[in-house]
């Protein structure tokens, strides 16, 4: 059965090209993926991300539970509203999912997990929580709209008035504010594009009217196609492409999200420490194609004497007007590699992502 978000009717009415994404019927684009990409880099665009799953974790055991569950340390969240990006690992250190956890107040947290992994995640979380004094609630009643771009906050601010508007506009990056309980709104200054903006969670019934008001405010509807090129330019991993249960965060460019300082026990820690002690065999790097062509996922990468690797995500970068990729390569890989595209070996430069940040190229071409 194909799932539909509360905004599905809007997408159809706007003439979106719809595709299956993790079981959800989602907009790929509304006419031109390139234009949508540029709108987000230059102005403001929005994405229906209601297929992602909010999970509320509450109770006296919430903090110790999340500190065991996640590779990043939730104890770092001391201020109400602060957000933390983390991987959730299995015992082998493999990435079950990547997620954002928000600190909503004492003993109250919200996780936002990927759509395609939500069912698996919930089973894992509930099993891990079995004997704990916790409530875990899947918020399938919540819709999510990501408004992104240099003008996104200004355009979105018209949705609110008075103290709510002030609270939203005064958010620092990676903080959230909320009001009105389950009938209100949860607004976070987060995103997946490398641009400023908000991710707005709200009751499903409010999603359509909010979407319409954002359209009226000049925010361009954007599909998952542009979301993918934007996140790849921003050097952000996509779960299932750039990491999965067979890779550790250390092999996925996510060592910065793993808190190994202190004695905290968390699932996967022993495997990560063993891997680090033995030396990492592989690393995730950015590639900039020197030749003409388009890098795609699962192309073979030749790193000379260091060995071979594989691209994990690849696309044409609308901002750089070049092709870019993320690739998992041998740890000893140098500054230049070749990529097999349809039997031809094309030259690519090894770079450190992000490729683009806040509308500007950060990789010299």
């Amino acid at each position, binding site marked *: 059965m194909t799932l539909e978000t509360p905004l599905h009717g809007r997408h159809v009415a706007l003439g979106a090209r719809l595709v299956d994404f993790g079981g959800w019927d989602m907009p790929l684009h509304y006419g031109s993926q390139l234009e949508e990409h540029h709108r987000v880099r230059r102005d403001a665009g929005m994405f229906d991300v209601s297929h992602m799953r909010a999970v509320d974790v509450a109770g006296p055991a919430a903090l110790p539970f999340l500190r065991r569950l996640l590779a990043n340390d939730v104890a770092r969240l001391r201020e109400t509203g602060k957000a933390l990006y983390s991987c959730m690992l299995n015992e082998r250190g493999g990435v079950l999912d990547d997620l954002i956890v928000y600190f909503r107040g004492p003993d109250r947290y919200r996780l936002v997990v990927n759509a395609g992994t939500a069912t698996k995640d919930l089973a894992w979380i509930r099993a891990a929580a079995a004997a704990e004094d916790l409530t875990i609630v899947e918020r399938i009643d919540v819709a999510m709209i990501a408004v992104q771009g240099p003008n996104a906050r200004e355009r979105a601010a018209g949705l609110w008035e008075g103290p709510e508007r002030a609270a939203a506009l005064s958010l620092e990056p990676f903080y959230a504010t909320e009001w009105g309980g389950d009938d209100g709104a949860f607004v976070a200054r987060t995103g997946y594009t490398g641009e400023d903006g908000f991710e707005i969670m709200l009751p499903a019934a409010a999603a359509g009217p909010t979407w319409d008001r954002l359209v009226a405010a000049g925010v361009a509807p954007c599909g998952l*196609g542009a979301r993918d090129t934007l996140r790849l330019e921003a050097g952000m991993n996509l779960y299932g492409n750039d990491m999965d249960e067979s890779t550790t965060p250390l092999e996925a460019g996510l060592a910065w999200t793993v808190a190994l300082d202190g004695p905290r026990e968390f699932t996967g820690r022993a495997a990560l420490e063993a891997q680090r002690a033995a030396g990492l065999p592989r690393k995730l790097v950015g590639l900039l194609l020197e030749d003409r*062509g*388009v890098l795609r996922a699962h192309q073979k990468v030749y790193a000379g004497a260091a060995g071979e690797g594989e691209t994990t995500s690849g696309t*044409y970068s609308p901002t750089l007007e070049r092709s870019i990729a993320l690739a998992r390569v041998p740890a000893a890989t140098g500054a230049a590699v070749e990529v097999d595209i349809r039997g031809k070996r094309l030259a690519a430069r090894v770079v450190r992502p992000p490729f683009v940040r806040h509308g500007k190229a950060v990789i010299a071409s």
Partner: protein
Amino acid sequence: MSHNLPADLRYTKSHEWVRQNPDGTVTIGITDHAQHALGDIVFAETPEVGRELAAGDACAVVESVKAASDVYAPVAGRVVAGNGALGDAPEKINTDPYGDGWLWQLAPADAAALGGLLDAGGYEKVLAESAE
């Protein structure tokens, strides 16, 4: 959705068009329907000049932001030209699929082979059937 289908061209089920040139060569591209379905085209690779193609050979590639798609030789023959202008401006395939967006030219092995291709009406029928 209706698409532009010039009556003087021949077509294939795999969405290529073929134009008969006065010098006996043919020019090949992808149809308006195909470019629309692919979306924003960012790269095109055409067959090397001199290459001998059999009908149905996957010999060119058109890449949109999202994916790569093969383009097939509608008839057998020798490649006599590729559209080098697409290197800097692959979007011409979107904006002018039957003109500046052409892909390559071929000297057909058998001029009569064009007769086996679809005319505009036949291709329109293919599109209508695939839309059902």
